[in-house]
C-alpha cells in the first residue's frame, strides 16, 4: 500500500468546495503518476479552477484530502511549493519587467532553479528576453507564464487553461511546448475546455461537469467505454410537414433508431453495428420511397463521450460566454 502511494505525484480524495450557495466541487478524486499528463476537461463554471487551486494549495478544501509526493499542505506547504510549478488561469505579472527579469524574479524564490538561457530557448522566448511584458502578445505571455512555472524544475506542473483565449496558431504552439515539457519523472495536471487540447496532450482525461467528475480514463478508454464503435447519421429528403411522419415510420420499423439523437433533418447514432443498420435503413427507406440524402459514418470522439455523459455538446455550453 505504502509503496503504491509513493508512486503518485498527486493523490486527491473526495474534494469538496462550496462558495456560499454554490457547490463548486462535489466529491472529486484525482491522481497523477510520474510521466503522466492528466487533463480536467469541462465547460466554464464546471469547477476546474476551484479544483486546481485546491490542489495548488491556494484554496482550502471544505472536505477531502490532498497529498503531493506524499506530503500534505497543512504540514509541508513550503516543501510542496518547491516541488510544484503553477500557471494560474488569470495573472498579470509586472508589466514593466522584461521576460528575463521576470524569470530571474521567479528563480529567486526557489532553492534551485533551471538554467535561464536553456529555459528561454526551450520556451522559444530567447529572442524576446529583453522585451517588456506589456509588449508581449497573448501567446508569448502564455509561453512566459509556462516558463515561470517551469523555473524550479517542478515534479508536478499545474496548468489552468494554458491556451484559453489564444488564436489557433498560438494555441498549437502552446501545445507543442507542453508536449516538450513532458518528462518521464514529471506529472502534468492541466484543465481545459478544448476537446482537442485534452485529446492531443492528455494520457488521461477527467470529464468534469457541474462540479462532479463524470468519468476518468484515457481518451481511447473513454471512447471504448462510452461510445464504442462508430457514429453515423443521416438526414431525410423531406419537407417540414412530412419529416416527422417519415421519422415515425422509420422508427416503427427500425426500433434501434430510438437510441439515436434527432438532428435537424434526421438522426445520429452511436453504435457497434453501424454498417448493418445502414443497410436496414436503406431497405426500409426504399420500400416507402423515403429519400435519404447525406449519410455519414465516423469514428467516435471525446465530443461524443461528453455528449453522452452530460447530454450537452461542449461547444454549446460555451456559447453563453
Amino acid at each position, binding site marked *: 500500500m505504502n509503496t503504491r502511494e509513493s508512486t503518485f505525484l498527486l493523490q486527491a480524495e473526495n474534494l469538496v468546495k462550496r462558495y456560499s450557495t454554490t457547490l463548486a466541487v462535489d466529491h472529486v478524486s484525482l491522481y497523477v503518476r510520474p510521466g503522466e499528463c492528466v487533463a480536467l476537461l469541462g465547460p466554464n463554471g464546471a469547477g476546474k479552477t476551484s479544483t486546481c487551486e485546491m490542489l495548488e494549495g*491556494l484554496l482550502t478544501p471544505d472536505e477531502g484530502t490532498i497529498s503531493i509526493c506524499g506530503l500534505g499542505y497543512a504540514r509541508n506547504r513550503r516543501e510542496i511549493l518547491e516541488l510544484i510549478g503553477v500557471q494560474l488561469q488569470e495573472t498579470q505579472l509586472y508589466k514593466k519587467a522584461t521576460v528575463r527579469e521576470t524569470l530571474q524574479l521567479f528563480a529567486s524564490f526557489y532553492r534551485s532553479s533551471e538554467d535561464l538561457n536553456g529555459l528561454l530557448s526551450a520556451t522559444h522566448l530567447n529572442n524576446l528576453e529583453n522585451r517588456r511584458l506589456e509588449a508581449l502578445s497573448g501567446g508569448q505571455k502564455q509561453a512566459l507564464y509556462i516558463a515561470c512555472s517551469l523555473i524550479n524544475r517542478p515534479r508536478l506542473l499545474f496548468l489552468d487553461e494554458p491556451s484559453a483565449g489564444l488564436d489557433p496558431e498560438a494555441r498549437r504552439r502552446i501545445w507543442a511546448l507542453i508536449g516538450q515539457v513532458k518528462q518521464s519523472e514529471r506529472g502534468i495536471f492541466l484543465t481545459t475546455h478544448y476537446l482537442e487540447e485534452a485529446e492531443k496532450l492528455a494520457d488521461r482525461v477527467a470529464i468534469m461537469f457541474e462540479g462532479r467528475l463524470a468519468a476518468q480514463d484515457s481518451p481511447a478508454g473513454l471512447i471504448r467505454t462510452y461510445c464504442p464503435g462508430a457514429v453515423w447519421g443521416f438526414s431525410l429528403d423531406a419537407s417540414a410537414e412530412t419529416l416527422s411522419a417519415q421519422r415515425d415510420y422509420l422508427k416503427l420499423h427500425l426500433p434501434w433508431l430510438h437510441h439515436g439523437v434527432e438532428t435537424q433533418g434526421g438522426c445520429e447514432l452511436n453504435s457497434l453495428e453501424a454498417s448493418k443498420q445502414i443497410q436496414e435503413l436503406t431497405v426500409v427507406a426504399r420500400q416507402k420511397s423515403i429519400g435519404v440524402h447525406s449519410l455519414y459514418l465516423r469514428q467516435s470522439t471525446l465530443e461524443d463521450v461528453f455528449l453522452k455523459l452530460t447530454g450537452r455538446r461542449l461547444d454549446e455550453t460555451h456559447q453563453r460566454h
Partner: protein
Amino acid sequence: MKLTSVIELTKCRWREFRREPSAFLFVLAMPLFWMLILGFAFSEDAFEHYKIGMLAGKTELSHQMESLLAHQKGLELVVGDEESLVSLLHRNEIPLFLKTEGHGLSLTLNGTHPDGEKARRLVDETLQTFFGHVETIPMRVERLHLPHARYIDFLIPGLLALSLFSTSLFGTGMVLVSSRRENLLKRFAATPMGSLDYIVSHILGRYLIFVLEFLVVLLGGSLLFSFRVEGSFLSYLLVSIFGVATFTSLGILCGSRARNTGAYNGLVNLLLLSTMMLSGIWFPRHHFPLWMQRLSEGLPLTALVDALRAIAIEGAGLTSQIPQLIILATYTVVCTVSAKILFRWY
C-alpha cells in the same frame, strides 16, 4: 527571509515605478509644481506692500508719526502696545516696528525678514520727505535676527510631507490593490517566497522612491527659492524617514484587503484631501477654528509637518519634537498590526 528574493522583488517594484513615465513624473514634478506656483504667487515682492508696527503713544510726535505713516502708500500700520508688537515681530507678521523716544525715534528691525530692509528704506524715505533732508529726526535702530519665515519656507516642508504621504498611499497601497486584483499576489502565494520578503521589498522600494522625493524637494527649494534648513539637516532627514515609515504602514493597511482599484482610489483621495486641509499644508493651522486645530493635532500628517517646520524654520532640535515622533510611532505600530491582521493575498 531570503535576501535574493527581497532584492529581486525590490528591483521589480522599482522598475514598475521608474519605467512608468507618468508615475515617475508625478512623484517628482508635483512638489516642484506647487512650489513654483505658490512660491511665486505668494512671494511678498509681488505686492510691494509692507505691514509695520507703531507703539501707541500720547506725545505729539507719536500722533504725527502715526498719521504720517498710516497715509503712506505701500505701508500698513498696526498700532499696539509693546508686547503685541514684539509678538508680531517674532511671528514674522511685521518686519519692524517704531516707537518714539523723547524727540527721536527707535526702530526695531528683524534683519532676517525678507521685507526688513525694503520696509525700512520706505520708512526712511517717508520721514525724509516729510522732515526735509537737513533737519532729519534722530533714529536709533535696533536690529534683531529672528528666524526667517517666508511663505515658501513654510510651504516647502509641507510639500515634502504631502509628497511622502500621497506617494505611500497611491504608490505602495495602490500597487498592493492592483497586484491582488491581477492575481499577482495569488501567483506569488503559489511559490515558496515568504510573505515577509514581499512586504520588506515594498518597504525598501518605498525608501528608494523616498530618496528621490526628498532630494527633489530639497534641491528644488534651495536652488529656486534658497530654502535652507535652520536646524540640523540630519534631524530633518531623520524625521522624514520616520514619516515614511508611518505612511508606508498606513498605505499597506489601506491596501491590505481591497481588490477594487476604483474604490480604493476614491477612499484614498478622500483621506488625502481631508488630512491635507486639516494638517495645514498650504496655510498655517492657527487660522483654523479651535476645534479643527485640536482635531488635526492627532493626525500623522500634522505631526510630520509640524516637526519638519519646527526644524527647518525655527531651528528646533530633535528632542523638542519627541511628541510628534511619538504620534508617528504610534500610528506606525497601530497600522502595522492592523495590516498584519487584515491582510489577505487574494
